[in-house]
């Protein structure tokens, strides 16, 4: 079968009129100014997929830049019978292989990312220099407490110092920390990097006894001991970095979402802090049932309010940042037999602590 066509040899932009001939071994091309040549069927490439009403544009693997334009549709159809891949039919084998590669890469990337984000931050948290921890703490504290009033810190307030010292009794391995009480409109306590612990006035108001406050404090010291806050911050930075890699250095995650990610510890971290608190309270002879009672109260309180209030609501309740579960409550054991609880604060001191923000 013969047909006329236009041919570009890939050497100059000159167009050549040629005659095409279908041979068993390939496509023969010949014209007044074009020496006869045969293009093998297997090497033919459809520059644009074949479409009725449009000329078929062909290239060939072995001759980059050379182009052949077939306008005669009957010939193009005939040609496709010999070289079916020109019809633009999906190449299932190739598509399958591509899909497999993409899925494998995605799984590998997810695996590596998950592993790195799970373990590396916790390890890095222990090699952060002190000054970096302090800088981090300054930023988080400023963001979180806003223009709430600072009622006192264990550095200058005698009551907070007594409370802190009471927990450190017989706990020589306890990490250094600074307790700060803020008057902000949420009920919560959290450990910041650099051993800073923030407690809110509403938490102290909600507590029935000094042992409850001491229990919460011990729990937060547990977070400080394990450097959970530092690890969480490093994790958040890692996620932000990852998002920037994907989006090409574009937007970063919003501060609020970042803070939420920072303050919401994993169940494992909560369990670690609970375990630490249990040990610390027993060594200091403080009744761990105070912490237990406080958790139960919080759980009841949150249950009544229900979840809601949007992002801000979710941030402000203790359940969202320290989810209290029955399992956690059940894990808290009383003082062992033979250990007698010593009071945490005197009545006068407790009364003073409850008025710390007045």
């Amino acid at each position: 079968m013969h047909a006329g066509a236009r041919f570009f040899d890939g050497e100059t932009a000159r167009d050549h009129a040629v005659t095409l001939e279908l041979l068993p071994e390939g496509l023969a091309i010949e014209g007044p100014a074009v020496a006869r040549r045969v293009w093998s069927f297997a090497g033919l490439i459809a520059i644009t997929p074949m479409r009725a009403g449009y000329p078929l544009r062909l290239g060939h693997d072995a001759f980059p830049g050379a182009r052949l334009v077939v306008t005669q549709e009957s010939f193009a159809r005939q040609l496709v019978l010999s070289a079916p891949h020109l019809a633009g039919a999906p190449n299932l084998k190739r598509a399958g292989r591509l899909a497999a590669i993409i899925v494998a890469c995605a799984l590998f990337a997810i695996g590596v990312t998950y592993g790195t984000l799970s373990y590396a931050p916790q390890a890095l948290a222990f090699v952060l220099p002190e000054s970096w921890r302090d800088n981090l703490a300054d930023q988080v504290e400023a963001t979180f407490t806003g223009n709430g009033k600072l009622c006192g810190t264990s550095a200058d307030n005698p009551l907070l110092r007594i409370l802190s010292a009471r927990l450190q009794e017989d706990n020589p391995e306890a990490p250094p920390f600074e307790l700060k009480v803020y008057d902000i409109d949420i009920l919560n306590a959290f450990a910041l990097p650099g051993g800073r612990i923030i407690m809110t006035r509403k938490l102290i108001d909600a507590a029935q006894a000094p042992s409850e406050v001491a229990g919460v404090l011990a729990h937060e010291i547990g977070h400080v001991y394990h450097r959970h806050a530092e690890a969480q911050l490093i994790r958040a930075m890692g996620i932000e970095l990852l998002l920037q890699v994907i989006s090409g250095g574009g937007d970063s995650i919003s501060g609020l979402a970042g803070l939420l990610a920072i303050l919401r510890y994993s169940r494992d971290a909560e369990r670690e802090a609970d375990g630490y608190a249990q040990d610390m309270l027993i060594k200091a002879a403080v009744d761990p049932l105070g912490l237990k009672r406080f958790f139960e109260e919080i759980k009841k309180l949150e249950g009544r309010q229900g979840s809601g209030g949007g992002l801000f609501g979710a941030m402000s309740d203790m359940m969202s940042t320290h989810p209290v579960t029955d399992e956690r409550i059940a894990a808290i054991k009383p003082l062992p037999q033979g250990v007698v609880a010593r009071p945490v604060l005197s009545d006068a001191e407790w009364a003073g602590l409850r008025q710390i923000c007045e």
Partner: protein
Amino acid sequence: MDLRAVDAEENGFGTTISIKYIDKPGLGRIALLNALLFVATLTLYRFWAKTNVRRHIWSCVHINGEPLEYTGRGRELFLGALIVFGLFFLPVILILAVLRLSLGPQHPLLVVFNLFLFLIFLLFWGMALYRARRYQLSRTLWRGIRGALVGSSWTFSLLYFATSLLSFMTMGWSTPAMNLNLQERMTGDMRIGTMPFRFKGRAGPLYGAYALCWVISLVTFILLTLLLVWGVYSASGGSLPTFLRDYAKTDAPPSQTVVIVTLLALFAGFMIVSALLAMIWTFYRAREMAIFASYTTLDRVRFRLDATGASLLGLVLGNLLLVIFTLGIATPFAQQRLVRYLCRRISIHGTVKIDRIMQSREPLGRTGEGLADAFDVGGI
């Protein structure tokens, strides 16, 4: 059987050139699929999306009956972006993070570093533009012949850097002359195969339109500022001096409403001023495009671009609305409108010796447009 070559030689003087944009169906499907995969892959698909759109739009541009062919691959764009991120952005992000961590967020050294970064970005901006153009040309085929950009991206980026700094120092008045320099270099480096484009002309004719736009911008800016002050004045109950004095008092912070109203007014004012200025400068851009086209030659061909301020403004505003109201899904159509605008308004006079357009011997880079993707200046 027609064995006659299509390009008739006119008495040995060469062939006339015509450009046509011939629409074909399929862009809607590309746009939808691109938008879908863009979201599904957390934007990673953007390299392949861009490639699909280019392949379509290129193939609609017919020069002497033969469409352009885009041979770029999404993979090349992806690799280019990855390399630039690793060599450029990752170190910057890490250094910034370490500096912030070790020095605290308010340290003066951070300001210095940011200023330094800004200069570096400015320096690389021109390089990004140049390399993106080089990649696109090398992936554009006409009748199997590749385009090319043969100069050095370093030279161009230095020129671009100087242009930006000078423009800042001369309050913009160096811009037309420097833009001419940039265009001369870029166009002069462009090739179809081995055939060079040439660019020759003076900056003088640009200055009329420039001066007009400059003065109108200044007047607009002053008028709007006065309007804003007057607005605040009447909002404060006609007692501006008292209002300002109250505002400046340190012991009595301004009420929240006043602060919010002032901020909103400033923001609205800023948006209005930016929009108006952009619209005014579209007229200069149209003039510049037309003049630059008239300074460009290829062999014995001269170009004329019938770009007017009004038509360009219509195009830009239309595109803006198109992109905004479809949440970006119709971006390919906006790009198509731009290319179609150029193809329809360009007219070509004179002839080219087709035989002298020989295959380019410039090496083909393996990756493309990394910097341009990062800075988002890759054009289409």
